């Protein structure tokens, strides 16, 4: 039986048509995505201190109704994160913070919370040195994009060359800082109040 004979077979033709129909939903043309690709290198996000927690009571031991407690960038209570990422790429830092501290026993009772963010991508030696030149975001901004290491001068260099073989891209370190203020404390019951702040760091793809 030759090819022509096969396609003349009506049962086979119907079967082929059915298979093509089913497959048509799954098959698509080649797509090329020019998003940032850094090779196998990931972003490493580390807390500088063990068990990072924004503790307002260390800044001010007694918090009563009507008080406002502010943790400044310079304060020891400010939380620092070290970001290690392949240099020459842009990072997007997104801080997802609630606007309230919530009473542990009753989530409907809240205290206003304002989380602030600062970053330093000028290769400071450590997080303390980095505080001095850190760039603070204006109040209300919780999202920022910056290069892993800032160029001190001159025009930007050529784009990074694709990696071959076992090449490893040089990594660079940037710091981000989280701090902020709480209050004024309304008339609320005494007790513990808390909030969960999430920090996301990703490569900026400009898609």
């Amino acid at each position, binding site marked *: 039986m030759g090819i022509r004979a096969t396609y003349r077979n009506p049962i*086979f033709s119907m079967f082929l048509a059915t*298979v093509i129909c089913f*497959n048509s939903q799954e098959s698509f043309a080649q797509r090329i995505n020019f998003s*940032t690709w850094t090779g196998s290198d990931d972003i490493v996000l580390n807390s500088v201190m063990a068990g990072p927690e924004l503790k307002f009571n260390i800044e001010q031991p007694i*918090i009563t109704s009507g008080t406002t407690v502010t943790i400044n960038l310079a304060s020891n209570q400010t939380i620092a994160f070290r970001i290690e990422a392949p240099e020459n790429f842009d990072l997007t830092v997104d801080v997802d913070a609630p606007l309230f501290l919530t009473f542990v026993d009753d989530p409907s009772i809240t205290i206003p919370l304002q989380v602030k963010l600062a970053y330093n991508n000028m290769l400071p030696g450590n997080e303390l040195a980095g505080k001095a030149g850190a760039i603070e975001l204006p109040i209300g901004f919780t999202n920022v994009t910056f290069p892993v290491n800032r160029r001190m001068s001159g025009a930007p260099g050529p784009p990074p060359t694709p990696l071959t073989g076992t090449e490893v891209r040089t990594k660079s370190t940037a710091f981000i800082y989280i701090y902020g203020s709480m209050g004024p404390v309304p008339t609320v019951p005494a007790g*513990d109040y808390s909030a969960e702040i999430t*920090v996301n760091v990703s*490569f900026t793809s400009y898609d």
Partner: protein
Amino acid sequence: MIRKILIVLVVSICLLSEGIAQTIDHTRKATLSVRATATVTDNLQMLTIQNINLIAPEVRENMILVSPMRSPFAGLFKIIGNPNARIRITFLQRETLVESNERIGEVKAEYNLSAAFEDLQIQSTLLDLGEANINLSNKGLLFVWLGANLDLSAALPGIYRSEFTIELEYI
């Protein structure tokens, strides 16, 4: 014929699996979370439950003695604050009262305080003179009794007035 059908099936399976393979995504994101915490404290409150009574006790050898731990004439305060919080109590320790009209006679007064978690005077313990650091109970309460020793040896009949001062603060 059967072989051809098999080939078509294999090709179609390959097409399907390719579609699945292309949906694999690369994760290039790091996430950490931080807790923000605050413990809110009640403002310290002090209620006077009973004033010290210096009229009823009898005078012995020119002295009126009201023990904060034993005397029923002692003054009583109730302090309400944050559970287990540590507070500092500062109070007037000694003073000399001068007769308010003639200003001749004088009474030397010495105050002392005792404190307990419950309203049981017999269980109370004497506080350090002048300034005491003490914890509130796990319900945020503290009962404080005020006693006084009055020296009347230089006193003349008349009116003597004073206001006992006590200060509380969290430490």
